[in-house]
C-alpha cells in the first residue's frame, strides 16, 4: 500500500511539475491569449462591418438626396443585420456547372485570409497579436493571394461573366501590385523596418504622407484597386458583368462576401493610416480612438469616391498602372532615399 501511495504521490508530483505555473503561463500567453485576441478581432471586424455598412449606405444616400435605411433600429442602424439574416435564411445555391469544392472553399479562404491578416496589424501600442519584424511584407503577401483566390472563385463558378471577372482580376493585379510594393519599399526605407511599430514610431515627427506625398497618392490609388472600390471596381462591375465573380454566389456565401468587402475596406484604411498618417499617434485621446478616427475619415473618403466616380476601363487601368503609378513610385523611392541620406543632416 505504502509503495503504491508513494508511487501515486510521485506521479502526481511529476504531473504537477509538468504543468508548472510557468508552463501554464506559457500556454496562456502564447495560445490562449492569441485565441482570445483573435475572437476579439473578429468581433471588432464584424462591428466595423455593421457600422460601416450603415455609414456607407447613409453617406451614399446623402450624396444622392435620399434617406437611406430608416426603418430597422435607430436611423436604420440594424438594416445590414436584417439584410444579412435574410441572406442567411435563403437557400445556398451552387450552380451545376461550378466546380463545387473550389467555388465554396475559395470564398471561405478569402474571408479567412482577411481575418488572418487582421492579426498581424496592430491597433495601438498595446493591442496586437504578434509583432512580426516582417509584418508589412507578410500583409502584402497575404493581400496578393486575394486576387488569385478571386480568380479561382470566378473561374470555378462556371459562369462566363465570372470567368471574365477572374481574368480581369489577374490583369488588375499585374497593374497595381508593383507600384504598391515600390511604395512599401520606400516606407520601409524611411522607417528602417518592416515592423508596424517602428513605422508608426518613425512618424512621430512627420507623417509619411507629408514626407512622400507622391508615394501616398500612388499607394492610395493602388489600395483602391486592391479593395475593388470605384473607380476600380472592374472585377465586379455591376453594369457590365452583372456582379463578376459574385454572379453565381448563393445567398449565404454572398453574406460572407459582404463581410469580406468591408473587412477589406477596414484593412485597407488601417494600412493607409498606419503607413502614412502616423497610426495611433495623437494628443489627449486614447491611442485606439485616434486610430479609429483616422480609419473612419479615410473610409468615408473612399465612400465619397464611390458616389462620384465612374468606372475605369481595364486596359486604361493597366496603362495607368505601368505608365504613371510605377514611374511615380520609383521617383518616390529615390526621393525617400535622398531624404534619408541628406535630409537628416539638413
Amino acid at each position, binding site marked *: 500500500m505504502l509503495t503504491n501511495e508513494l508511487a501515486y504521490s510521485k506521479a502526481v508530483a511529476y504531473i504537477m511539475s509538468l504543468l508548472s505555473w510557468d508552463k501554464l503561463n506559457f500556454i496562456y500567453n502564447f495560445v490562449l491569449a492569441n485565441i482570445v485576441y483573435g475572437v476579439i478581432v473578429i468581433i471588432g471586424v464584424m462591428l466595423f462591418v455593421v457600422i460601416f455598412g450603415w455609414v456607407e449606405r447613409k453617406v451614399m444616400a446623402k450624396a444622392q438626396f435620399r434617406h437611406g435605411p430608416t426603418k430597422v433600429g435607430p436611423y436604420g442602424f440594424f438594416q445590414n443585420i436584417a439584410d444579412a439574416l435574410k441572406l442567411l435564411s435563403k437557400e445556398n445555391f451552387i450552380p451545376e456547372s461550378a466546380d463545387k469544392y473550389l467555388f465554396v472553399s475559395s470564398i471561405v479562404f478569402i474571408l479567412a485570409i482577411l481575418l488572418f491578416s487582421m492579426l498581424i496589424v496592430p491597433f495601438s501600442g498595446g493591442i496586437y497579436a504578434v509583432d512580426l519584424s516582417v509584418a508589412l511584407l507578410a500583409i502584402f503577401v497575404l493581400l496578393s493571394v486575394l486576387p488569385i483566390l478571386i480568380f479561382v472563385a470566378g473561374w470555378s463558378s462556371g459562369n*462566363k*461573366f465570372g470567368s471574365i471577372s477572374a481574368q480581369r482580376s489577374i490583369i488588375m493585379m499585374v497593374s497595381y501590385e508593383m507600384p504598391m510594393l515600390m511604395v512599401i519599399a520606400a516606407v520601409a526605407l524611411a522607417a528602417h523596418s518592416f515592423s508596424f511599430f517602428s513605422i508608426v514610431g518613425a512618424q512621430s515627427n512627420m507623417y509619411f504622407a507629408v514626407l512622400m506625398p507622391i508615394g501616398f497618392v500612388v499607394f492610395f490609388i493602388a489600395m483602391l484597386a486592391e479593395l475593388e472600390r*470605384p473607380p476600380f471596381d472592374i472585377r465586379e462591375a455591376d*453594369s457590365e458583368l452583372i456582379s463578376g465573380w459574385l454572379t453565381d454566389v448563393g445567398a449565404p456565401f454572398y453574406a460572407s462576401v459582404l463581410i469580406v468587402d468591408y473587412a477589406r475596406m477596414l484593412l485597407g484604411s488601417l494600412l493607409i493610416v498606419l503607413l502614412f498618417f502616423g497610426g495611433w499617434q495623437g494628443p489627449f485621446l486614447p491611442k485606439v480612438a485616434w486610430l479609429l478616427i483616422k480609419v473612419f475619415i479615410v473610409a468615408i473618403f473612399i465612400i465619397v469616391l464611390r458616389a*462620384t*466616380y*465612374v468606372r475605369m476601363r481595364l486596359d*486604361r487601368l493597366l496603362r495607368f498602372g505601368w505608365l504613371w503609378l510605377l514611374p511615380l513610385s520609383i521617383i518616390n523611392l529615390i526621393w525617400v532615399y535622398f531624404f534619408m541620406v541628406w535630409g537628416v543632416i539638413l
Partner: protein
Amino acid sequence: MSETKINIGPIHPSTHGVLRLVVTVDGDTIKEVEPHIGFLHRGVEKLAESRMYMQNIVYMEKLDYAAPMAHQELYVSTVEKLLGIEVKERAEYVRVVLLELQRIASHLLWLGTMCNDIGQMFSMFMWTMRDRDMILRLLQEATGQRMFYVNMRLGGVNRDLPAGFEDDTYKVLDSIEHSLGEYKDFLESNPVFMERLKNVGVLSRENAIRLGVTGPVLRGSGIDYDVRRNSSYYKYTKLGFRPAVETGGDSFARYKVRMKEMQESISLVRKALEEMPKGDALGLPIKLIGAVPKEKEAIVKRELPRGEGMMYMVADKQRPYRLAIRAPAFINLAALDHISRGQRLADLFAILGSLDLVMADVDK
C-alpha cells in the same frame, strides 16, 4: 485567342429593359454584336387597326414610356393630317411647351442611366431623376397625369395650361438650367468619365447616313438635320430653334448633343411661354363621332427625343386601315453592331447608353 460568345440579357442591369445581345468577343475585343429583340412586342400597329382614331392614343404613348408626350403628339398630328383639321394657334405654342418639357425629361433620364452604365453608383441617376420629377410635376399640372398624359386632341389639347403654370415653369427651368451646368462641370472635369466616352463608339458621317440613324446620334456625327427645323412644324422656326450639332461622332459627341439640346429646349420653352398668344387651345372632344377622312393616307414626321419618328396611316372610316410606325430607337439599335466592333467589352455599355434606347419603342 479563340472567340467566345457571351449572352447579355434579356435580364441584365444595363440593357434598359429586355434587350438581348449575343456578343462575340476575342479576348476583350468585340467582334460582333447581335441584338435579339421582340421580348416586348405588343403588336401596336395591328392593335391600332381595330380601334377608333382617338382610342389609339393610349397605345401610342406606351411606345416610349420615357417620352409618351412626343409619341402621342406624333399620332394625333397624323390623324389631324388625315382628317384635315387645323391646329389652333395657341395650341401650337402649348404643344411646343409640353413637347420640349418632355424632351428635357427624357434626356435627363438618359443622362442618369448612361452614367449608371459606365459605372457610377446611381448618383447621377438620382440627381437627374429628381430634376425629371420636377418636370413630371409640371406636366401633371398641365395635363392631369404624371406619366401617360392622353391630353392631345384633334386641333388642340385636352385643356389649356392652368393658371400659374408659367411661373412654375420658369422656376423649374431655372433650377434645371443651374443643375445642368453643375452636371456638366462635374462630369467633364472627371478624367475617367471623359476617357470612358471619348473616341468610344465612333460613327462616321457616311456610316451615320448609311445606317439611317436619326436624332442626337445623327447630329453627333456632324450632320445638321433636325426635323424640327427641316420640316418646320409648329412654331419652331419662329421661336428661333437651332439644332445642336457635334462633329466627333463618338459617345462623347452624342452626350454633348443631348446636353446642348436640353439647353435649347429650355430656351424654347421660355420663348414659347413669352410669345404665347391669348385665346383658345382646346381641341375636339375625344369622342370623335362621324369623322370623315379628307385624304386617303397621311404621313407625318416629328423629332422625338430619340430621333426622327414617322407615322404612316391609311384611312378607313372610323379607324385607321393601316398604321405603320418608324421607331427611331429601332433604327438606332441597328447601328450598334457597326459602332461597337473592335471596341472593348466594357465600352459596349457606354455605346449602348449613348444610343439611348427604349425597348418599348424598338419592339413596338
